């Protein structure tokens, strides 16, 4: 229960972050959506045993977090919540893949462990970049970018409605759950028998609300078409941002920066 409320607080917090006033926030959402998409594809395009070549990619989220003035600690904490499923599947890699893949002095590390670390890195990078995207762009921004990029309008409108009413309906759900909590002793009262009318009632209220919203739309001349006024501009800053980062990603994909750096260091030490 308490956990649910914190999850939701995180949600509203992320939404608040998107109202920041930094240069990154001001960029046209399309630039950020495109750069993030390329980032994710490049990151997952590495082979299963890639660990070191993935590391330079932290530059992108790190820079955006910094320029966007985002709270790194909060984002890191959010990332921790995501790892379980990936770990669950990834942790089996060491069991199935025992072939030694590299030796660190006396230590032999199996391919399974290497690929496991690779999976962890990938998920931190991909999920992290998605969080950074939402925290600098906001859901509405992303939706409008999607529409500009060709996503059908009914779907986009639907996303916007969903987002608008998440705040209203989850509050209703939290109230309902609280009321049930206060009148149920331990696990009693939380069975399916009570759950169905509870959720059913919420559903009926939602349905009525949808009808009232529809009425409100009709009252203001809605005839099936949606018009959203947004003056977005894909200017020099956006072009630079998108092309610049895409260039960096491709460079990191082709050149193993970690290895080069490591080579220099070990050379110097010897």
């Amino acid at each position, binding site marked *: 229960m308490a956990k649910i409320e914190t999850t939701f607080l995180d949600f509203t917090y992320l939404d608040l972050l998107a109202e920041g006033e930094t240069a990154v926030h001001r960029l046209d959402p399309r630039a950020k959506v495109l750069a993030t998409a390329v980032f994710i594809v490049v990151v997952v395009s590495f082979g299963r045993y890639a660990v070191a070549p993935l590391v330079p990619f932290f530059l992108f989220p*790190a820079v955006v977090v910094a320029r966007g003035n985002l709270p790194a600690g909060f984002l890191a904490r959010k990332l921790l919540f995501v790892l379980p*499923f990936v770990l669950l599947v990834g942790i089996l890699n060491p069991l199935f893949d025992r072939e030694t893949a590299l030796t660190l*002095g006396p230590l032999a590390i199996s391919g399974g462990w290497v690929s496991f670390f690779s999976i962890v890195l990938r*998920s931190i990078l991909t999920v992290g970049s998605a969080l950074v995207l939402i925290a600098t762009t906001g859901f509405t921004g992303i939706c409008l970018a999607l529409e500009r990029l060709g996503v059908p309008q009914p779907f986009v409108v*639907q996303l916007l409605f*969903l987002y608008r*009413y998440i705040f209203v309906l989850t509050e209703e759900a939290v109230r309902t759950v609280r009321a049930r909590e206060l009148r149920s002793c331990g696990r009693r009262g939380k069975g399916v028998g009570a759950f169905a009318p509870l959720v059913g009632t*919420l559903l009926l209220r939602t349905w009525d609300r*949808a009808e009232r919203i529809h009425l409100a739309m009709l009252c203001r001349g809605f005839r099936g078409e949606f018009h959203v006024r947004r003056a977005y501009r894909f200017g020099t800053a956006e072009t630079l941002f998108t092309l610049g980062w895409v260039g960096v990603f491709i460079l990191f994909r082709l050149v193993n920066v*970690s290895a080069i750096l490591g080579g220099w260091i070990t050379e110097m030490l010897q």
Partner: protein
Amino acid sequence: MHMADALLSPAVGGAMWGAAAGAIAYCSRKVRSDLDNRRVPLMGVLGAFVFAAQMINFSIPGTGSSGHLGGGLLLTILLGPHAAFLVIASVLVVQALFFADGGLLALGCNIFNLGFFPAFVAYPLIYRRLVVGRSGGGREVAVTIAAAVAGLLLGALGVVLETVGSGVSALPLSTFVLMMLPIHLAIGVVEGVVTAAVVSFVRKARPEIVESVRETRPLAPFPMRPVLALFFVAALLVGGLLSRFASGNPDGLEWSIARVTGKGELTAPTGGLHGAVSSLQGKLALFPDYRFKQPPAGPKPGDARSGEAERGSGTSVAGMVGGVLTLLTALLIGFVLKRRNTSG
């Protein structure tokens, strides 16, 4: 269960994105041509409802654990397959962005696994065929459970195939299937029971809600074929295109680029999609281009290391050091930028 970016190869992820995008486009057109614009707010608000409903959990008798509603089948029963598919997809978009469930690349997979199967397979083939006109009672409950189970099992199978097809996880297909199916069988039964209970509650209170969908349903045989065809064409196209550039073979992109630039590697990997163990030695180690592959003469990106370092453990230590250092540099750059940001 959500598919995750980290377990996906771009080819599989991209193919599923193509499939999901095709289905969204198709369903959007369908919904738009449906003249009833009352549904515009209804769909979005029901999407929000799914989130709200998922915050309410219930205890599962005899297990000591608790569950919550998934909602895919319920949405389909209330809205019909096309609208429901769009709603499920949008719920997944929000989950991917805010709750980091899965990730953006895996979104296509998740939309397919959790949206397509309940809306376009379980609902028309099981629920609608067996329940319509004979609603109420034990039969409806049984059919709802069957539909929910079918939807979830197919979805789980989707996760398995996508993971194995991507070849990032080393899990063998059979083990993974054995791991996933029983869990999803159980989840499906619970989902079915709960869905049936909610539907019957709604029907008692406001019969017109459940009936209205039935009336608006197309009378013609269900248009499975266009949807399926669209899915496959889109998947093939995108998958095919992507695998040209980044074949499922993990090293594909590097390899093809090397070929283009004329700097082929001695052991150009040609192994199968996930012939993990056998080709392991020939493929990438922790640090590709680093230990096993002898670079051809001439400068190559990975060439900066010294001769000594090439022998023994030097290389991997170098890689390790380099990795840590790069990470630190990346974070440091971020930190410095941040300081400048806040001070300036």
